[in-house]
């Protein structure tokens, strides 16, 4: 009896969903959908900083103080997730959040979006991607002529941010700072990877 009642309720709720027109029911702050739009690639961010500096940009580092002191993206400010409720970030700026992993910054992204910040992004792949793609991009051995231009650009970015390109087989994730034995290092080399959620 209860099963039938629940089944009927589900049928009613599911069936009437067909009648709902295609429009967002809640428009809290004109926020765009997080799908596809909330990530910024490390290389694009680096190119943006190299071209224009951090004008109009607020870079927020969400990692632990030791990791921040060891290395951070130039111009970044460190904030803990818990401090964001009080912190006032410049609303006109584009805010880019990063953490060791992309997923941990996503929670803060959610919070800032809900607070009404219009332009908030998460660094795709987190700090690991910044290190792999900007600081220490892997260069293919015997580079073909047509790829030279692209890797030339990567090398330029890498040097601008104080990193060094590495040949592909020897690719390593290491911070460029003179204090590589910081607490953050162990964590950086461990990454649960994409879809790192199980139940």
């Amino acid at each position, binding site marked *: 009896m209860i099963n039938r009642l629940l089944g009927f309720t589900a049928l009613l709720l599911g069936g009437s*969903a067909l009648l709902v027109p295609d429009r967002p029911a809640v428009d809290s702050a004109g926020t765009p959908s997080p*799908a596809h739009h909330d990530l910024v690639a490390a290389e694009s961010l680096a190119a943006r900083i190299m071209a224009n500096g951090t004008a109009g940009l607020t870079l927020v580092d969400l990692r632990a103080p030791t990791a921040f002191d060891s290395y951070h993206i130039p111009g970044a400010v460190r904030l803990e997730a818990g401090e964001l409720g009080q912190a006032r970030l410049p609303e006109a700026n584009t805010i880019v959040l990063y953490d060791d992993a992309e997923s941990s910054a996503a929670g803060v992204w959610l*919070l800032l979006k809900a607070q009404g910040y219009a332009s908030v992004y998460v660094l795709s792949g987190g700090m690991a991607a910044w290190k792999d793609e900007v600081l220490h991009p892997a260069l293919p051995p015997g580079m073909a002529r047509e790829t030279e231009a692209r890797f030339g650009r990567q090398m330029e970015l890498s040097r601008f941010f104080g990193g060094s390109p590495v040949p592909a087989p020897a690719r390593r994730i290491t911070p460029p700072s003179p204090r590589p034995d910081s607490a953050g290092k162990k964590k950086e080399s*461990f990454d649960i990877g994409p*879809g790192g*959620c199980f139940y």
Partner: protein
Amino acid sequence: MDLTAPFYQFGALGPGSGLVVAVLIGAAFGFFLERGGLGNGRKLASQFYLNDLTVFKVMFTAILTALLGLFWLGQVGVLDTSLILLSPTYLVPQIVGGLLFGAGFVIGGYCPGTSCIAVASGKLDALAVFGGMMAGILVYGEVYPSIRPFAESTSMGRISLPELLSVRPGVMVAAVTMLALGGFVLADRIEKRRGNRLVQPE
């Protein structure tokens, strides 16, 4: 109406009270799964022999509850569904991962969550699965740098079924609801025909 979620990030819960709530939710989750029979490896494995479809029913009940709940809470303005975070899709690695997960589930008789529940109720087979799971996490973490190119291949970004199929979310909600309800009826029939027996140890 003000948005109410996520409580933790809005500061409604501090780190301490957040942990207390997490423990309570976890305990309730475990209790209800155990009461639903999902702390029993034989019952779980019977799913794959089509003898007992409890797992299917529990899973689809949860999917349906979350689906209808989120959709209608969004429609009445309680929840901003654009703020829901989607995990990115990596098609081929996730299919391979799913197959591996399924194989482990059939062999071990538990999935990660249910193995924890069965360990809590003192089942030794679950302890073996739990140990294997922990070893697997460790090994995956260690070999991740070398399999990363594969793990990050065939990326489709954060995509939902309505986006992929270019249909309205409401149409997808109705379709999944029908699929689930049809599945429940079919599962009942299969169980009746096969006598609803559990896998027996040989």
